[in-house]
């Protein structure tokens, strides 16, 4: 049963996301009357034909923001519990960088994201890069017990992949370089219905798979030895964690660029805010929390006339909040 405080969080995030999506669709440089927006969703013909495209684009980017934010937050939550470190997340551990390197290989090599073959190549390369970094991290975690040292190793992977990407720039054309730099700023816009289907289906599937991690994550708060004695199959769990977090981070990075901050800050907030210690409650709340922040960030991006990159906004909104929350809650909490 969900306790009252967690139920309130579900309602706040759910309503917040809904309101933000509606706002994101209604407001923008082109003002479209609400009645016409409803007509467009009903499939009716409206006065200005261009409005349909505008509404579709606003709706799509809202959905992308919701899924991207949710996916990064859930990936971060799983990694924080597995590595038992509140600073873990796909960005900090170098997983996003691994995905970026995979994307760089393909994009700087001349493939286009708009072609189906190029898109699948980019998804595959991004996932391979993300999972390769996770495997490397898990391999060295056998020799490094300190999770802080492991985070430093993750940061080093990030620098290393950035250096490799710089080398790739040298042989890339101006157009490919420009495409990659723009991609790197992060954005939730530009997906067509076909891409949106792949993006959202992939994320929904992986989030559903993450429900197989509920029991392992509940046990892992006591450490791997304890969770093993509680009946958790550690090797299987490790495999699932690599696969789910690696591909979640990769899908989002491939489509939206390397989005920072959400994957580390939201899981930390949610773990502190929820009353329940059961990940059957924490995972969905982490998804909704991440989705809420992402859609808020996208609204700010659009209010700025699309001049601000998403990454800048997520950091501007979130970093001060998190510092404030940590300072306040650490007065009575141990580090969690």
């Amino acid at each position: 049963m969900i306790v009252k405080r967690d139920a309130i969080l579900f309602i706040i995030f759910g309503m917040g996301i809904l309101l933000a999506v509606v706002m994101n669709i209604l407001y923008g440089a082109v003002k479209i009357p609400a009645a016409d927006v409803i007509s467009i969703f009903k499939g009716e013909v409206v006065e200005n034909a261009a409005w349909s495209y505008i509404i579709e684009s606003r709706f799509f980017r809202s959905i992308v923001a919701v899924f991207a934010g949710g996916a990064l937050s859930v990936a971060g939550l799983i990694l924080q519990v597995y590595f038992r470190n509140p600073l873990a997340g796909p960005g900090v551990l170098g997983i996003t960088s691994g995905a970026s390197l995979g994307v760089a290989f393909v994009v700087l090599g001349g493939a286009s994201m708009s072609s189906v073959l190029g898109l699948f190549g980019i998804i595959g390369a991004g996932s391979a890069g993300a999972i390769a970094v996770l495997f490397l991290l898990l391999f060295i975690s056998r020799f490094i017990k300190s999770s802080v040292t492991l985070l430093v190793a993750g940061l080093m992977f990030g620098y290393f992949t950035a250096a490799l990407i710089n080398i790739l720039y040298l042989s890339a054309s101006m157009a490919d370089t420009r495409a990659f730099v723009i991609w790197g700023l992060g954005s939730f816009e530009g997906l067509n219905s076909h891409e949106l289907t792949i993006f959202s289906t992939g994320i929904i599937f992986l989030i559903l798979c993450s429900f197989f991690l509920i029991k392992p994550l509940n046990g892992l708060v006591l450490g791997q030895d304890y969770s093993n004695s509680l009946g958790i199959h550690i090797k299987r769990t490790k495999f699932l964690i690599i696969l789910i977090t690696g591909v979640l981070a990769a899908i989002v990075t491939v489509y939206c660029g390397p989005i920072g901050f959400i994957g580390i800050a939201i899981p930390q907030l949610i773990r502190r805010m929820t009353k329940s210690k059961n990940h059957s409650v924490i995972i969905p709340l982490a998804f909704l929390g991440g989705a809420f922040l992402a859609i808020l960030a996208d609204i700010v991006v659009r209010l700025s006339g699309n001049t601000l990159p998403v990454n800048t906004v997520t950091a501007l909104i979130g970093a001060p909040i998190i510092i404030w929350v940590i300072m306040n809650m650490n007065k009575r909490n141990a580090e969690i």
Partner: protein
Amino acid sequence: MLKFKNVHIKTDGGPLFQIQDLELKDGLVALMGRNGAGKSTLIKSILGNKSLFEGTITLDNKNIGDFAAKDLAKLISVVATKPTLFGNHSGREVLNLGRLPYQNLMAKLTAEDKVKVDEIIALLNLGKFSDRRFTDLSDGEKQMIMIGRAMVQDTQLILLDEPSAFLDLVNRHQLMKLMREIVDKTGKLILFSTHQTDDLEKYCDTVLLIEKGQLLNLKNPATFKADIYKSFGLDEV
């Protein structure tokens, strides 16, 4: 219940000691030995780590290595030297984790699970601090909660790896008293490793002593301390 036949305990560094023939049914059993003798390795072997032993270890007449993790979790529970928790759980919420082997995919805590946790809180007198945040508890209280969690797991065998290593004299005695009470009230088998010889005669039924490549089975409580000192070649103080 727990049987060893021609067991050789080993690590990557080579063999540690052997157990010819040993059967443990119930009671409070202390495991002693010098640093590096292989106490923790024996505990890991009992948990089914096949790379750490040769020979036959059986639990309820089934080879220990043949159990799936989820089945073994209903037969053996473990308490580590120092509990570490990642989260802001209360003592009760840590106790709840003991029900994990019995829960479904969504890890739903049933009414039965709650009754079991309440029973253990009452049995071990944990109510004074079970609703406080686990990380705020003293080392002794944390260890009591972890033993409670093992009890909530409802296994016949409980293994404890140096549970009193970080405890002061008072907490150590409370811990020994608690383990004795559990054995007397429930008939479980509790096997714990330790370096302390003072409490053994008062509380333990058996002492297993690792020395000179063998596992000695000391059965006379009155001479536990003398036998241990003699085996180590020490003059008793």
